[in-house]
């Protein structure tokens, strides 16, 4: 057996849309050096990524989780999931909580929301017109749309957005130390506990009011679930709207193709999801048994990072994977994950993107960047990739 030196996770991007080039040079599974000195694994192959994510011998429990990159220059210390935060739990704890929410996010329920999402989106188009060209697409369009939608769904007052948007931005900021992100977490938790109390006093027609009816959920669990939905519900789609628009403007033929044929939008959304894969690291599992994987054996206790961007650009699954092609078959991309933790809000995200891109193209067919592409600040040091700002003009 040959010994291969473990390397830390490649993080340097040379273009705005492509993952670090070194990832493509790696075998489907390779050794990875974690910041705390642990030598675990990195999966970059599509088939193996799917296998790990679907196998319950790879645990999602946060108390076991090692992070592949440091936070604020320090190794991340495993920290148990707060109550209700079910992405950091395994079955059956995970399943008990997730099942209470799946009925709220079905394909049918999400389609019923379409007219309201259209309204919200059109109001943002009007806000852009009122502001005038040029405008920061992130502030006026990409961030408000999913934030407004998730606030309405949960029953959060949108006027309180500064509070949770500032704190969630801190949660995702890799330059902050773990102690600082924990303080941000506590602040969002306080905010959600207040919301739970408010919904108990005065229930309305929203998800949090529905959840407080469950006697077997504690206030801390309710707050944790609300926290998860709030964070997952706006930063992700917001970055897809911002970065996706930038990608379409970068390759104007794609923008024009979508403009000429709006029926292309469903596949366009899937292809942008695949091509951009904004959850660019941090999908980590911990082996709780020895598991043969490809041509290696992962030992119990080993950390396994799954690079979703690399898996989505695996040439054995997607032809010419580095090309953005709105017409290509996109079946099987792993942007929403795989296995029991696959994104609960994915149908909502799809609709927000479909409506968002179409509205933008329809309202501003000649939209273009207002600055050089190289001047766009990229979110390379955030847990969710994207653009910090996107100045556009028309």
């Amino acid at each position, binding site marked *: 057996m040959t010994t291969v030196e473990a390397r830390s996770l490649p993080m340097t991007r040379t273009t705005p849309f492509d993952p670090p080039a070194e990832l493509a040079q790696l075998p489907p599974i390779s050794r990875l050096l974690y910041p705390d000195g642990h030598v675990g694994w990195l999966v970059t192959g599509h088939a193996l990524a799917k296998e790990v*994510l*679907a196998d319950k011998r790879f645990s999602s429990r946060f108390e076991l989780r090692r992070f592949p990159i440091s936070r604020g220059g320090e190794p991340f210390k495993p920290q148990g999931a707060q109550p209700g935060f079910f992405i950091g739990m395994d079955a059956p704890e995970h*399943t008990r909580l*997730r*099942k209470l929410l*799946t*009925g*709220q*996010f*079905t*394909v*049918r329920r999400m389609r019923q929301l379409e007219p309201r999402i259209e309204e919200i989106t059109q109001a943002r188009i009007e806000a852009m017109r009122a502001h005038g060209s040029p405008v920061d697409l992130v502030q006026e369009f990409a961030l408000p749309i999913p934030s407004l939608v998730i606030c309405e769904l949960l029953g959060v007052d949108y006027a309180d957005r500064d509070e949770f948007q500032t704190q969630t931005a801190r949660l995702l900021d890799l330059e902050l130390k773990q102690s600082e992100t924990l303080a941000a977490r506590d602040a969002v938790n306080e905010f959600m506990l207040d919301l739970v109390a408010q919904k108990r006093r005065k229930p309305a027609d929203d998800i949090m009011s529905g959840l407080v009816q469950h006697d077997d959920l504690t206030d801390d669990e309710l707050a944790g679930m609300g926290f998860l939905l709030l964070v997952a519900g706006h930063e992700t789609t917001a970055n897809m709207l911002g970065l996706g628009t930038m990608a379409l403007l970068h390759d104007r033929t794609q923008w024009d193709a979508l403009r000429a044929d709006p029926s292309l939008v469903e596949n366009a959304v899937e292809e942008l999801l695949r091509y951009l894969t904004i959850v660019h690291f941090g999908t980590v599992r911990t082996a709780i048994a020895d598991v043969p994987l490809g041509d290696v054996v992962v030992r119990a206790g080993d950390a396994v990072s799954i690079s979703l961007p690399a898996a989505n650009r695996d040439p054995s699954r997607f032809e010419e994977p580095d090309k953005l092609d709105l017409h290509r078959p996109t*079946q*099987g991309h792993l942007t*929403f*994950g*795989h*296995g*029991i933790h*696959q*994104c*609960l809000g*994915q*149908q909502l995200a799809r609709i927000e993107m479909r409506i968002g891109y179409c509205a933008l193209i329809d309202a501003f067919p000649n939209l273009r960047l207002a600055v050089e592409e190289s001047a766009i600040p990229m979110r390379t040091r955030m847990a969710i990739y994207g653009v910090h700002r996107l100045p556009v003009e028309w």
Partner: protein
Amino acid sequence: MKAEANREVCIGAGMCVLTAPTCYDQDDDGTVVVLRAEVAPGDEQAVRDAADSCPSGAITFVE
């Protein structure tokens, strides 16, 4: 081809409803239901894709 689903392992992601809507739906709790077990010849690839993309392995079929 016969479309099948295991409601016990379903996590309600909805991929089957998007991919093979003639054969699969979700109930009010989000759990999969088989709408039509006998798969029309034109829908066979959609059912294969639904099984491939099902995150929890709930979607299966018999050729």
